[in-house]
């Protein structure tokens, strides 16, 4: 238990989540599950960026009522900002995908992706 596995644990989880996400997109037949797969992918990428931003012994960059020892040890919050932006975008993408899914169900009567392929060839 020399800590290296704990340092790398977030990245292992990221890899597992990426694999799970791609598996869900690539092999599940339900359209809603495909959407969920994309959400898993997004979670993996967000987690990757947040894990990159972790600095051991650093403090959150909030000056309001910070503990005195935090001065000079605050971390740059760029990764958190990136993650937040990507979450915002993810919300929009998910909402639009689900709206499409509703509309597809209305017109096709199914959410099976092997049947939603009038456009091909």
């Amino acid at each position, binding site marked *: 238990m020399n800590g290296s596995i704990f340092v790398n644990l977030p990245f292992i989880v990221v890899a597992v989540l990426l694999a799970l996400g791609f598996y869900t997109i690539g092999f599940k037949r339900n359209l809603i599950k495909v959407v969920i797969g994309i959400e898993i992918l997004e979670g993996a990428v967000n987690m990757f960026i947040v894990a990159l931003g972790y600095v051991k012994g650093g403090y959150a960059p909030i000056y309001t009522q910070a503990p005195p020892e935090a001065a000079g040890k605050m971390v740059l919050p760029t990764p958190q900002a990136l993650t937040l932006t990507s979450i915002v975008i993810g919300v929009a*993408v998910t909402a639009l995908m689900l709206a*499409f899914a509703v509309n597809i169900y209305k017109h096709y009567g199914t959410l099976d992706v092997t049947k939603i392929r009038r456009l091909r060839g």
Partner: protein
Amino acid sequence: MMEHLPALMIAIPLFGAFTAPLFKKHYKEVSIWAIIITGITVVLSLLLAKEVVTGGIMVYVFGADKPTLVLPSGYSVPIRIMFEVDAMSAFMAISATLMSFIGAIYSYSHVERETGLEKYYALLMLLEVGILGMVLTGDLFNLFVFLEIAGIAGSALVGFRNYRGEASEAGIKYLIVSAVASLMVLFAVGILYGQYGNLNLAYIAKNVSFNMVDMVAFGLLFTSFAMKCGAVPMHYWVPDAYTEVPAGINPPLLVATYASLYALFRVSFTLFANVVIDLARVGWIMSILGVLTMFIGVTMALVQKDVKRLMSYHAISQTGYMLLGVGVGLTVLHDPSKLAEFGRDAMAGGVFHIINHIIYKSLLLMTAGALFYATGTRNLNEMGGLARKMPITTISFMIGAAAISGLPPFNGFASKLLIYETSYRLNPLLTVFAMVTSVLTLASFVKVFASAFLGPPLEKFENTREVPKPMIIAMVILAALCILFGLFPNLVLDKLVYPAVDALINSAQYHSWGGLA
């Protein structure tokens, strides 16, 4: 005011996009509003190009005291979001604004029978914002954000005709593809950020060390942008999306595709330009993708019966020419003698082909939209004898078809000539494929022409007449541009294309923010 141009390029279409929903049911007014806003951006982009071509790279740092303050005092790394506009960006910006303008004019009549137009125009301008942001930005994360904006706006427009199930299907396909591609772009950005602690494109490019992790990031970026620009075999979303989108959106959507191509070039030339050994490998990957894209695209187009789907496959096939041209240039980028001999011209051919293709393929897709508007069908088997009913559409189609097949004196000829001659120097086999593709392109457009426009007049189309004026104006503008660019290729090449190519080749200029640091 000139130094604020890059910010205004984004702010003005955003303003237009956010005011458009306030128009509610006043559809005529909102269409005119969109035409005005996109027209202003055309003027701005021309001004921007003039500034950049004469004055070199333009940097705009957001939130700083002055636009060129890249490194605030006490910092050795850039910390703010910045736009970095070189000639290549300006070139793409002109294409984007021009095509949004044309699309807005065309839409004035083409979608007048639909509802929810205030959202349609808001999304059109948002799509323009996404494209402009992608091509102007100098920040990797910003690139991701604008890629997503363009992807969301584009797929919402693809699914705009929500009373058609196929439109929703195409929309979700496009959205899934663009969501996965942009997430992988974000992943690659995360990899690069983790190593270099910065998101600025120029800063990372200066410090990138080409270890294995970097190359994984490069591979992710390359594949994602290749998928978004429709390279075979990741092109399946292109025909779906282009077919179902209203024809007025086709021009901006085409440019959105080529904004990804621009990002691909930017990543290969600027971000990873200093890698010496592998660049030839990257160039070969790009050329081979290009040849595959050309050939499979055109052979699939030959068997299509839906007129817009046929043209979408041609859009894929023409993307191959650009990949081939620029790929040939990339292969010899670190070999100065070969670069001067044919590499620079190959890249000029590829880059020139972008704007040529945007013009004539928009024209062709618009004529297909006009056919759909007039006859209510896109199936070629049901059409026939329309040449007498719709003369202007027919002539526009002929000009577009001649241009895409590379017949002189239309604009496709000049860029294809450059690509043929230069790819022959690298490997004659590439040229053979390019020429066969060109012949097959002509063949399939002869098919469209023969079956839709020629032949005896059919009884069911007796009451068909020419499409309304705004659609004709849009088509005639593009047809005129086709002839103009074909007769005077020098004009465009010297003023726009060669500066853009030189901007791509001289990555050192980009890395130092145009000499600011």
